[in-house]
């Protein structure tokens, strides 16, 4: 069953068209890596999927009861302030805001959901820890836990391995694969195209000259060789 279908999506700002045509569909449980050169429009495409940018034309449809506000998003690591004074729990709870509607406070269910997200990623003992005192890898896991609090269906990650050392990156990818295979989460991850080790999903959305095309990872690697 398709969880996301993009049909002839065109995205840009004013007269500057960044994506001329993005047409692809993702099934439940797919793990797609978005690749392309710098400035090719990878982040622009995922922001359109998240509803942060309105496409100029075309449609993005969500399946299986998914809505824009129940997508888990992990922005580039540079966005949140690494020295922000907050506990891990405070940050991960903010992932539940999409479920709160106009309610001003979190309910018991949301607190439990946060504990579950932290347990899933093996960082439940960090709940009361200060975000600014964590290592780069731990911070990334906390932000991933926040995304997990927002969704049970689709995760979108924008270059999550940036600024992670080799070991932390491998560890992080292992976690993502586990979430994909064991919990059936559909994942879209922007990554660098340079290293085949980064293409950990079953599909690749390659953006070139403003056109986004989808292919199976093996097929994509074959074509690139």
């Amino acid at each position, binding site marked *: 069953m398709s969880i996301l279908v993009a049909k002839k999506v065109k995205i840009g700002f004013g007269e500057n068209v960044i994506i001329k045509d993005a047409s692809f569909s993702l099934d439940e449980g797919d793990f797609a890596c978005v690749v392309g050169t710098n400035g090719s429009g990878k982040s622009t495409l995922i922001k359109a999927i998240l*509803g942060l940018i309105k496409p100029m034309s075309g449609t993005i449809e969500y399946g299986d009861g998914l809505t824009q*506000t129940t997508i888990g998003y992990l*922005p580039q690591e540079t*966005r949140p302030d690494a020295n922000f*004074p907050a506990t891990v729990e*405070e940050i991960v709870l903010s992932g539940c805001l999409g479920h709160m509607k106009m309610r001003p*406070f*979190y309910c018991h269910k949301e607190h439990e959901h946060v504990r579950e997200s932290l347990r899933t990623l093996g960082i439940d003992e960090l709940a009361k820890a200060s975000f600014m005192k964590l290592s780069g890898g731990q911070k990334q896991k906390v932000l991933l836990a926040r995304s997990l609090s927002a969704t049970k269906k689709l995760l979108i990650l924008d270059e999550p391995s940036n600024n992670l050392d080799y070991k932390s990156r491998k560890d992080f990818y292992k976690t993502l694969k586990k979430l994909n295979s064991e919990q059936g989460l559909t994942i879209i991850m922007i990554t660098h195209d340079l290293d085949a080790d980064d293409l950990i999903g079953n599909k690749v959305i390659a953006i070139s000259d403003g056109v986004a095309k989808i292919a199976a990872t093996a097929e994509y690697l074959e074509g690139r060789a």
Partner: protein
Amino acid sequence: MVEMFSYPFMQRAMLVGLMISICAALVGVSLVLRRNSMIGDGLSHTAFSAFAIATVLGVAPLYIALPVVIIASFFVLRLSQNKRIHGDAAIAVLSASSLAIGTMAISVSKGVNIDLNSYLFGSILAVSWTDVILSGFLALIVVALYLFAYHRIFAITFDEEFAKSVGVKTGLYDAIFAAICSVVIVLGMRLLGSLLISSLIIFPTLSAMRLCNSFKKIIMASVIISILAFVAGLMMSYSLATPTGATVVIMNLVAFIICYLLGKIQKS
């Protein structure tokens, strides 16, 4: 010490000051963490020009200053997030222009008696019971709005793009926050004046950040520090016959130094 609070003007000053200190500490946390500390400065100067123009026109200053500062704060908050425009430059332009407009308005007015010092440095000992009631009402609205929007304000302060992605109406909450900031600044003008009010917003947060690592604790600590600094400042200004606003700022500076040292001890 008890004697000073037998005077009605001191009772009024204490009540208004406490309310403003609480509100200023609340908005200060988000402003400082969003690196928008200087917005308070820019807006207080805008409030100064609005107060001056209103007085020259013979209109109640609050009715002009409040809407003007709300509009200005909304634009300044949006401008500060625009990557193509340098937010600090926009605030500097707003500050200087507002101060100039206010000063010009006062200088061209004839037959109007304006105490420039009270606008620039505050005159909390001159507040009336009507001011106390109005301040109490506005402070209640500020605290209620802040509590209602607390989790959204946290999310926007930490990571605005993520907050948007989970459906937080960042524009709406920015507008609410801008309105809260404006009310605090306009009220705070009576306490510290346009030149010193931004210190009441910034100092308690900076002090609390030396000691706490959680957003909620920083808010609570900054409210406590703000109240203590105000009470100490008011009492000291009475005892030493010093200007109240300046003494409150000095007490905030002392609190910051103490927190800084305690933070160093805590780390070691």
